[in-house]
């Protein structure tokens, strides 16, 4: 369960990205986060992923305030969630296989297990054939899917995705959404930021709309 209590985020620049946000996502729920550009979607996901901290309020995961986590627990926590970034953040000098394997290597998993998991993840996003390629050899959509494979390879119980279909043509976009739905059916809690209104509406899931904070 993900819960935000009176969360505000003011950036050092003075920009208020979020103001008094209250939100509750049940275990195993799938929801969409919408709002205009600058409404604070990415900021909200970053707070949940503990990539940044709220200036006010609390983020609770399964009832636990994640701001209480110590430094090495933060790393642990990040490994327990899967994050798909708006600009996929793949390592250009590593193969697709190594990119997807990264979270598992960090956990120090055995090579045989890593291989099995990476292949399973690549299979899910239909990119098994590209495992020996490098990111720059892939199309934008393929990179996005590799980002998804890396996010799910650890079998996280929470998946956060920031514009995962931003660069994709409509057909591929709905394929990706189907993939998320499958993970959701396996029990993962999923929160996806997107402003592709028609696509979101077709999914028939809960939609959370953020509004841009006026002024400063």
């Amino acid at each position, binding site marked *: 369960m993900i819960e935000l209590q009176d969360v505000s985020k003011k950036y*050092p620049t003075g920009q208020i990205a979020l103001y008094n946000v209250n939100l509750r996502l049940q275990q195993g729920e799938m929801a969409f986060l919408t709002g205009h550009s600058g409404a604070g979607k990415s900021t909200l996901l970053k707070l949940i992923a503990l*990539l940044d901290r709220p200036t006010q309020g609390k983020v609770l*995961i*399964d009832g*636990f305030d994640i701001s209480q986590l110590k*430094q*090495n627990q933060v*790393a*642990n*926590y*990040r*490994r*327990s*969630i899967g*994050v798909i*970034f708006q600009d996929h*953040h*793949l*390592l*250009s*000098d590593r193969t697709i296989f190594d990119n997807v394997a*990264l*979270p598992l*290597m*960090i*956990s*120090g*998993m*055995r*090579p045989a*297990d890593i291989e099995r998991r990476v292949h399973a993840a690549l299979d899910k996003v239909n990119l098994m054939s590209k495992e020996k390629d490098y990111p720059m050899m892939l199309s934008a959509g393929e990179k996005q899917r590799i980002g998804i494979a*890396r996010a799910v390879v650890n*079998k*996280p*119980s*929470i998946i956060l995705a920031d514009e995962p279909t931003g660069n994709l043509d409509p057909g591929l976009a709905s394929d990706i959404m189907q993939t998320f739905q499958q993970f959701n059916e396996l029990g993962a809690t999923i929160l996806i930021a997107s402003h592709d209104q028609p696509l979101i509406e077709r999914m028939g899931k809960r939609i959370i709309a953020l509004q841009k904070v006026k002024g400063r």
Partner: protein
Amino acid sequence: MSKTKKQATSPIRSGVSQHKQAFTHSLMHLWQNPISTWITLAAIAIALSLPAGLYILLGNLKTLTDDNREVPTISLYIKQNITEQQAQDRAELLSELKDIENVKLVRREDGLRHMQQIAGVQDIIDTVGGNPLPHVLVVTPKMSLFGDSGVDLESLALRLKNYSEVDTVQMDIEWVQRLRAILHIAERVVLVVAFLLGLTVLLVVGNTIRLNIENRREEIEVTRLVGATTAYIRRPFLYGGLWYGLFGGAMSLVIVHSSLLFMIAPVNRLAELYGSHYSVSGLGVSVTLIILFCSSLLGLFGAWLAMAQHLRKKHLMQES
């Protein structure tokens, strides 16, 4: 959150495999950036060669001056009325003293025979009539040229003069004392040079690792995003520093020993001119190991400093 921890990986095995990863990745990284690697290694090697070379030079000077012929001796001229047996007894008593290495009795007959070999001396002896030479005790004090052996030659000579059998004391040790003083300073110089160049190695490795960190900023960020701990992020860079230190140290040994080979022939020729069988010595096993150990440690520490600085900067950025 407890439900999210489902890996059955044991912490020990995962620790070992993470070290293996960092070990191979850091080596691969050196291999993949040959130019910067060689430049760094050369800088480290050259910095280490100088103190190592000076150390060898000093070591050789030490053995050179340890050569028996070169050790200072004190000659005690025994009074004419003392018999050979009495002189011999005194010699044995003296050699028991703790600051005396050995005492050799040169009988007046031996001294004479020795003198007669020198051209023209025979005539002088004939004019004098009889053997004018006294028995002589040649005393070799216990001392080394390195460090302070605690032997004060002046006071030793004074004490020896006080024995009733002794007529006069003669020592030719001024040059030894000067050499000792010079070597003493040289030893300090080597220490200072070693310290400064050790610092250089630290800075070279630190700066190289800092550049590596800069170049791999993206990688560091991404691994952090997907849940790497600080230790995980730091590890390959620490290994990198260790490799720089170790390989740089090894390279300096190669430099030092090839320079040594280059110098052996002329040194031997010089030694021959002096009729000595002196042979140039290199670095012993223990010194070699110490150099490798220290350079590895310097590399590791340099990398650690660079990483600490990076992490601090990162921390400040997040805090602000």
